[in-house]
């Protein structure tokens, strides 16, 4: 390595002043709170109280929680976000509930009345990128957040704002608008609530590496990649709650074959902290501390894999009986008949494993039904040595999925894990 090259990295200080063309759209109005609580059954008990203190409803393509025209298998929540002094609050719906990311990101357009201060790290912005290549640019702010009936907490969040000055060149194409619309400028939601297995959204990589290209320190119209301590990164709210903060339980209903128009499920805060979150007989699978993933064995191959409410399908390597739908549904799987399959999840460190049965049906048929909530839809993943398997939202239906968080512990163990 030639260290005399390094200083020339400042060539990258060139700031691209991005002038986007396009019409502005009014933010999607927050759906009203409430919604009926006709939660599904699954392997759940009849004594479950959806109004308990540590329970938050999750609407899956439900009109009380998701904007109309939402993409299929979209779990939505509403959150209340306030100025840090509590002087002004807004309740915002159409927030994607996401166990594959970490922390709250919310569109500027969805919180017009709030005036959020910089975080203690100063004038910091972020380019957050997602698995499908979509990106979000905007500053890190301190906000007061209330989840369900839990006590409010104050924490760093990202305000999604493509107009925030100094957008990094590699964040080009960042989403501009909340809600639905055609083209990649529209995110499809008002924000994302990341409640995955990590406490911070970038961890030691961004804390120890100034050239992380995820966090940027901004001055005037210019932003430079910068290291940000894990505490000053966008924080997973679960670990910051004042009680019931050692994990979450997802309780999503069973979805019958062929799908449903919409459903209601629940997120329960805490593991073993109250009668409604006591784990029964479950297998706990540790996630790896780097990627937050487990190994899945499918079709004789060992694949890295993640468990994720924000993925709206299984993602499976192509196999003979799972042909690509092609044409307008390229990438989705369209088997001739429904396929009953098995895969085994192995925890990090090659410890315990658990076999999961699942089914994949013809997505063109499902999609053309006009329904929106499916438990048997799959997308094609990689087939090569870096192949992977995603346990998306369909995995969650009809079971209780316990999830531990970095830095926390419960009767199921400490740190990052899933148990079901």
């Amino acid at each position, binding site marked *: 390595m030639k260290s005399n090259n390094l200083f*020339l990295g400042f060539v*990258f200080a060139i700031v691209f002043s991005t002038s986007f063309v396009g019409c502005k759209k009014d933010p999607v109005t927050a759906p009203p709170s409430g919604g009926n609580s006709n939660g599904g059954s699954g392997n759940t008990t009849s004594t479950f109280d959806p109004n308990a203190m540590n329970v938050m409803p999750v609407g899956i393509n439900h009109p009380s929680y998701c904007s109309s025209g939402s993409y299929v298998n979209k779990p939505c929540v509403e959150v209340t976000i306030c100025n840090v002094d509590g002087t002004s609050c807004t309740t915002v719906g159409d927030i994607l509930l996401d166990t594959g*990311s970490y922390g709250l990101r919310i569109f500027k357009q969805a919180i017009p009345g709030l005036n959020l201060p910089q975080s203690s790290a100063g004038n910091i912005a972020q380019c957050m990128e997602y*698995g499908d290549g979509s990106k979000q640019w905007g500053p890190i702010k301190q906000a007061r957040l209330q989840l369900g009936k839990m006590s409010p907490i104050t924490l760093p969040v990202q305000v999604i704002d493509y107009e925030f000055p100094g957008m990094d060149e590699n964040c080009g194409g960042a989403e501009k608008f909340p809600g639905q619309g*055609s*083209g990649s400028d529209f995110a499809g939601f008002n924000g994302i609530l990341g409640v995955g297995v990590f406490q911070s959204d970038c961890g030691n990589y961004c804390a120890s590496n100034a050239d992380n290209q995820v966090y940027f320190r901004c001055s005037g119209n210019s932003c430079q990649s910068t290291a940000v301590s894990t505490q000053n990164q966008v924080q997973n709210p679960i670990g910051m709650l004042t009680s019931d903060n050692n994990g979450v339980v997802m309780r999503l209903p069973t979805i019958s074959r062929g799908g449903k128009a919409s459903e209601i499920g629940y997120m329960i805060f805490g593991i073993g902290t109250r009668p409604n979150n006591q784990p029964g007989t479950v297998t706990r699978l540790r996630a790896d501390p780097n990627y937050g993933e487990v190994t899945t064995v499918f079709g004789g191959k060992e694949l890295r894999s*993640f468990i994720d409410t924000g*993925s709206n399908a299984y993602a499976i390597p192509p196999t003979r009986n799972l042909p690509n739908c092609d044409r307008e549904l390229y*990438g989705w799987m369209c088997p001739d008949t429904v396929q009953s399959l098995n895969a085994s999840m192995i925890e990090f460190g090659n410890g315990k494993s658990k076999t999961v049965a699942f089914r994949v049906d013809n997505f063109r048929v499902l999609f053309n039904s006009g329904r929106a909530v499916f438990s048997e839809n799959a997308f094609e993943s990689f087939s090569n040595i870096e192949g992977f398997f995603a346990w998306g939202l369909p995995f969650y239906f009809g079971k209780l999925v316990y999830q531990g968080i970095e830095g926390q512990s419960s009767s199921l163990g400490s740190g990052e894990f899933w148990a079901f």
Partner: protein
Amino acid sequence: MNSSRLWIFQLTIAIATLFPNMSFATLGEKESSIEVLRKASRTERLASIRSRRSLPSGQPEFTVQVLKNSGTEIREYINTSTGKIFAVTWIGHRTPPTAALLGSYAQDVRTLERSERRSPQNPRGSRTFSAQNQRLVVTRSGHPRALRGKVIARTLAPAGVSLDEIQ
């Protein structure tokens, strides 16, 4: 090294010096660019892998260079017959700078992603994205902290090759 090759070498070093983040070679270009650029930048080589299938000459059909650049692992697939990089894949905290990684294909990939990712008929929201045209196959997936991508230049790949065929 003759003078013209030396000149090219120096030019390449100069380019690498100006763009230290662009420290891996580019889709569609020659393999030799990997080593020159790697040495001039913050990219380490982790491994080299040979394809399982061989050419009649006994050489592997393709080789894979495994590189690491700023928290992201990059694999570059080189067609032995042409010496050109026909596919790139990555996993890590961020997508490598696409201008450097995809070169002349970058705009094609961007166009394909914009046209396909969120067309009304293709229900978005998946953490996975796939699209193809006659020149390219583009796949992405993962989640924050573990973003994955794969771009294959179809016309540069060995005939009938499957990326499964890696040792």
